């Protein structure tokens, strides 16, 4: 029987495995795999490019929302911060996206077709429309030139901004990655909330509290939506929630949640203190970035482990 060299590594072929170690939320299921190899390929998207883009795109899109609101209600200092912030964030985003391509010189192929079946195609067209508007809004604001065109650009960017901030949720959920796909009902709200709290946070950080009321409102609303939606997401995911809670990724997401909750309290209770407001704002921005990196890494981990692909499919077949 020396020729019978059955692999003994985790999840070896033809063998049932039972997992030990960390305490799972859902009782572990037995399953079979091919030498423990993943069934799907993990994304080739790189850190920090892609999770950084999710964060910056959200910050930009929601900042344009804030800019439009602040502009119309007469919070001109806040509007200026939001417009400049939106332009800076979307510029960095674009660089990150092009850099992440396997063939960066061919980035313009993104606008070769329009495909509603591809969130990345929809997003490319959104960015192509939004970017110039955000740029025009910021340039007009800073230079004072063409104020009417500037207002139009501000409103246009405010209209497209929510799309820029949320389509990325469909982008990651429209994959076979279990920890992303199975959360498609909640992810857009997590992303919208995270974007709003980041944009509100930037406003709080860079503006005197007396001039930042719309930013505070946006931050508080966004942070609350994000905290609730993320909890709902984890409930929905069942065992695919494990990658969100285990190891470094789990720690990052817990820190993000604590920062968000703390900043939420700080933004409300410390509304008359410049220092507390600024600290709360900075915390919200940081928390939003950590959240996106954590969600990104959780998806990668769920793609690497065949368990998250095979067990839910088996359960579906048993029903």
């Amino acid at each position, binding site marked *: *029987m020396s*020729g*019978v*060299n059955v692999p003994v590594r985790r999840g070896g*072929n*033809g063998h049932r495995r039972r997992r030990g170690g960390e305490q799972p939320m859902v009782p572990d299921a037995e399953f*079979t*795999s*091919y030498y423990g*190899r993943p*069934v*799907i*390929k*993990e994304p080739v998207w790189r850190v920090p490019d892609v999770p950084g883009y999710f964060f910056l795109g959200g910050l930009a899109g929601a900042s344009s*929302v804030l800019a*439009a*609101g602040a502009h119309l*209600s*007469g919070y001109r200092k806040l509007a200026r911060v939001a417009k400049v912030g939106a332009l800076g964030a979307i510029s960095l985003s674009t660089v990150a996206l092009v850099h*992440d*391509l*396997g*063939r*960066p010189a061919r*980035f313009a*192929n*993104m606008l*070769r*077709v329009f*495909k509603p079946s*591809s969130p*990345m*195609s929809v997003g490319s067209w959104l960015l192509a429309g939004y970017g110039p508007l955000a740029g025009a809004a910021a340039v007009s604001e800073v230079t004072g030139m063409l104020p009417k065109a500037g207002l139009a650009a501000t409103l246009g960017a*405010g*209209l497209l*901004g*929510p799309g820029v*901030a*949320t*389509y990325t*949720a*469909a982008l990651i959920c*429209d*994959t*076979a990655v279990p920890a992303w*796909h199975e959360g*498609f*009902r*909640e992810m*857009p*709200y997590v992303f*919208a909330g995270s974007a709003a709290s980041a944009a509100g946070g930037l406003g709080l950080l860079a503006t005197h509290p007396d001039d930042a009321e*719309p930013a505070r*409102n946006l931050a508080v*609303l966004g942070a609350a939506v994000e905290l609730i939606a993320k909890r709902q997401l984890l409930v929905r995911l069942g065992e695919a929630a494990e990658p969100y809670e285990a190891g470094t990724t789990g720690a990052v997401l817990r820190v993000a949640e604590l920062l968000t909750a703390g900043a939420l309290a700080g933004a409300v209770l410390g509304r008359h203190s410049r220092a507390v407001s600024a600290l709360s704002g900075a915390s919200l921005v940081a928390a939003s970035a950590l959240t996106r990196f954590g969600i990104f890494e959780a998806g990668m981990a769920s793609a690497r482990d*065949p368990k998250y692909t*095979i067990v839910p*499919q*088996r359960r579906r*077949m048993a029903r």
Partner: protein
Amino acid sequence: MSSDPAALAGHLDHPPRMGFFTDTSICIGCKACEVACKEWNAVPEDGLSLSGMSYDNTVGLGASTWRHVAFVEQPAGPSDGVRWLMASDVCKHCTESACLDVCPTGALFRTEFGTVVVQDDVCNGCGYCIPACPFGVIARREEDGQAHKCTLCYDRLGAGQEPACAKACPTKSIQFGPLDELRERARLRVQDLHAAGQDDARLYLDDPDDGIGGAGAFFLLLDEPEVYGLPPDPVVTTRDLPEMWRHVAIAAAGLAATAVALGLGRRRR
């Protein structure tokens, strides 16, 4: 008409849908398919290491591996020793193809034969197709930064030839032909195997009502799909996309409404 993807893609008056029926019950693990594929398609070498996974040192499909022979050694009864499963895996050329759906450049397209092919001069290496595939087939090549996978030998099909792997297969484990004929042949083959006492023979991805609308390349397996590294019940991710867009629209509308609410509150001083 979901079984006629070529027509849905706009090919009028197209040839019949062509595909593979890979009958793993007669695979001898010779890897002639892997070699023939690499040779014909000029696919670069992608590693010459030993994996420790039985005779499988190819390990899996990838950007530079378009046929992959899996080897599974299972303990059989005390007197039988070991049962050795071998199976040549390949791109499934799904009826509902996630890689094609999500490709933002149109580099991935549906051919007149109903197969799915990447256009090398269009792909910009965004990588979206890679996590979209429920089988982990398509991948990005380090050398050129672009996505690659089996083309079902699109060039050979155009010249009336069969794909290189099927041509090279010495046991006819890999059969090429019109998908309708292959499905009929496969049903008869399973019946024969069952009659011969091989009760665990089953078809995989032959059903047009499954989660990918049936595959252009389907299989006869002798154990559960996951034993061979295949997902037991794959569903194309884009089936849920309309609902995803609905939730994105609600979330985005909520953000936009927030802007309006913020704008309504006139500054007090």
